[in-house]
């Protein structure tokens, strides 16, 4: 090893950029953009409401009390009551679980199916690629919400079908992102190097491609969560999927719609605000996750 000293002229270890941990990076991002921190806090609140909400609320979300119908917000009914005298605050909080689980389930479903289909298509190409591309193109040929309407109308009016429809209309998005990311990495230097190291194609896919695509897919996931909630609420707003009296934000806004013109604003406002806040939170979260995952985006 004596001749190595000649080849090792400079103290190379000092050239390297300092090692930063993910945690430090996360702290930096939250410090730089407090909105992201706020979004994470809000997200925690939503998860909490979804988990514990129904057992915490002051009133039974389904109990009607016609003597107290259509009362404005007050100390006893923070968000007022609806046309059947149900407590809107309790209903808004209780609805979190349903709306949240519709979004999470459909996004998880499409994450697995769309992601797998896209990665396989992008990495192997050939007929798999053609097939996945055709399916995605066909779905994309429809205005997505309209397709979701058609699917739920055809499959039948149920929450499960809303989840399925939401997953289907998001499929092209996931498949395309995963395909594109797998495709550009298919011939990347590190994948070629791994080929030279004797890895089989399937092993390449699992050890080289998939772990590198996960962060991008995670961003995609948090960005589409908001869209999934909006979509589900939109469907129930026009009477698809969730049936009254189940507390759900979209339906509650729909029920309150007829009272807007006569001035009882609170019936529609609070569920609408809840919906908006949730979607807003997911969108901010998506931006935050993107910053976290891709440090080059911020400089």
């Amino acid at each position, binding site marked *: *090893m004596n*001749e*190595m000293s*000649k*080849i*090792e*002229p400079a103290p*190379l*270890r000092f*050239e*390297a*950029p*300092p*090692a930063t941990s993910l945690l430090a990076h996360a702290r*930096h991002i939250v410090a*730089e953009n407090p909105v992201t921190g706020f979004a994470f806090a809000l997200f925690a609140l939503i998860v909490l409401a979804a988990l514990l909400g129904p057992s915490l609320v002051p009133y039974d979300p389904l109990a009607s009390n016609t003597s107290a119908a259509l009362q404005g917000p007050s100390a006893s009914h923070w968000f007022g009551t609806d046309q059947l005298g149900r407590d809107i605050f309790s209903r808004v909080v209780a609805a979190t679980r349903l709306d949240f689980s519709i979004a999470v389930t459909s996004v998880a479903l499409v994450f697995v199916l769309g992601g797998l289909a896209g990665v396989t298509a992008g990495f192997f190409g050939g007929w798999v690629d053609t097939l996945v591309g055709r399916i995605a193109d066909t779905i994309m040929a429809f205005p997505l919400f309209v397709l979701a309407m058609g699917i739920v109308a055809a499959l039948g009016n149920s929450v499960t079908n809303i989840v399925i429809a939401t997953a289907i209309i998001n499929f092209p998005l996931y498949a395309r992102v995963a395909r594109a990311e797998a495709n550009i990495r298919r011939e*990347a*230097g*590190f994948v*070629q*190097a*791994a*080929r*030279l*190291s*004797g*890895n*089989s*194609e399937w092993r390449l896919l699992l050890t*080289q491609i998939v*772990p*590198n695509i996960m962060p991008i897919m995670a961003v995609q996931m948090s960005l589409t969560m908001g869209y999934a909630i909006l979509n589900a609420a939109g469907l129930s707003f026009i009477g698809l999927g969730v049936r009254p009296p189940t507390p759900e934000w979209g339906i509650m806004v729909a029920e309150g719609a007829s009272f807007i013109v006569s001035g009882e604003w609170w019936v529609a406002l609070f569920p609408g605000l809840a919906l908006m806040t949730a979607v807003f939170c997911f969108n901010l979260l998506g931006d935050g996750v993107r910053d976290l995952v891709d440090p080059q985006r*911020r*400089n």
Partner: protein
Amino acid sequence: MSAPPLLDVRKLTVEFATRRGTVQAVKAIDLSVGKGETVAVVGESGSGKSVTSYAMVRILDRAGRIADGSISFSGVDLVAASEAQMRDLRGREISMIFQNPRAALNPIRKVGRQIEDVLVQHVQATRATAREKAIEALEKVRIARPEERYDAYPFELSGGMCQRVVIALALACQPQLLIADEPTTGLDVTTQKAVMDLIVELTRERGMSTILITHDLGLAAAYSDRVVVMEKGRVVETAGALDIFRDPQHPYTRKLMKATPRLGMSLQDLLPDGREVRERPSPEGEAGAAGSPARSPLGPPLLVVENLVKEYPRPPKGSLLARLTGKAEPEAQPFRAVDGIGFEVRRGETLGLVGESGCGKSTTSMMLNRLLDPTAGRILFDGQDIGAIPAKGFAASPFRQRIQMVFQDPTDSLNPRFTAERAIADPILRMGKIRGRAALRARCEELARSVGLPTELIDRFPHQLSGGQKARVGIARAIALDPDLVILDEPTAALDVSVQAVVLNLLDELKQRLGMSYIFVSHDLNVVRLLCDRVVVMRSGRIVEQGTAEEVLGDPKAAYTRELLSAIPHPPA
């Protein structure tokens, strides 16, 4: 130099606001350019040379600002000038040309119109005369059929042609100063020579001054009167082009100078320490022969390539309907990226595979390392036709571990989610015999040491390593299983010259020690000369010439090889 300089930069400091606070990219530099003079600003990446030029015309991006100093151009203070004044000066008095000419042109506007825009802006032409003048400008940069080219979009032109358009654009208003920022980086060496000769001729004709910004000392020496060397935002040395090569003063300049490969040097000469005061051989006398490294005796052939061909189908022509009805034109001839080449590599030998972009050298190397299937021909490795084993299943072949590769881009060739150790261990895990955590670790550390990578760095991820360190990881991975043949695909193209010098020496030393053979794929003949025993010159998928390095590079038989050699800018040795 009694007349006041055309451009006089004093104590210029440029700051950038970044995540980690304010960073000074340029620190109190002085620079002057006389009338008709060509000044080269030379430095490695991050030296602040480009930022200096942007500051001079005040087109720094938002985060940057001139913090201190003065820039005086023909008596005008450019730091204090209003934006309107600056706009009037840019393009009319001071012009710039940039690296990557295709990107420097608006992709959706006809090139003629882009020249017109500048002419009209600076009232050098009216709408009525603009077309004529733009065509004239195209003619001056020797673009054939300028009337037709006027209507072309950048994507329809070659890289060299785009750079001519950019030059036409820059010179359209007869400016006094031209700033050329890496004008030929990314262009082939023959195109580089054509473009540089054109710039010199046109600026000389007009008595213009030029600032040539480059990382290439050879280019700077060949085309400038004076050289300014920058390091980390400071000017470390300014001297006449000849003086700076004969007698560099600053240690950094000396190091940079030494690291630049040229005629009559050996690999060890590139390194900064060691025989510092060694007499340099006279440039004419010992060129060629003296430059080649000490050769070990060559063994029997390890790899024999016979009549190797790679074809790619061309997209079919004719409409869908015509194809369906069978009325399509006869199938177009497939494109031959590699067109029947043959050569051999002997044990212990380094074979250089050289040529300009698109000559088929990369396709060839991909076939040799069995990531790509040839259309025809044989690849005999140790007597066996490995070309017959499909690339898809080659990972399982016992030959896999005997042929390895070092990639061009050290960053791209490392999985961002693998530590250096995991990357080095990958081939061992798949094909090696070492088992057990500790043994593997020990082997990885040994490999790291042998490529000069500090062992405490092997737990780091690629983004925590420098370019040179990443290159070492890539080399360690390639030699992990003691291969017989390593293909080096432009292994230093992405590195600064000083790092290149170290990596080249490392590669040569490893070869001697481990008894490997190399195929060194490169476009840089100066580097090939230093490292290779024999050379194969390729053009358009065919071999133009092959022979020993002395023969091919010292006394080329083919006209194309001579053209390539004469296009290399030569620093005075």
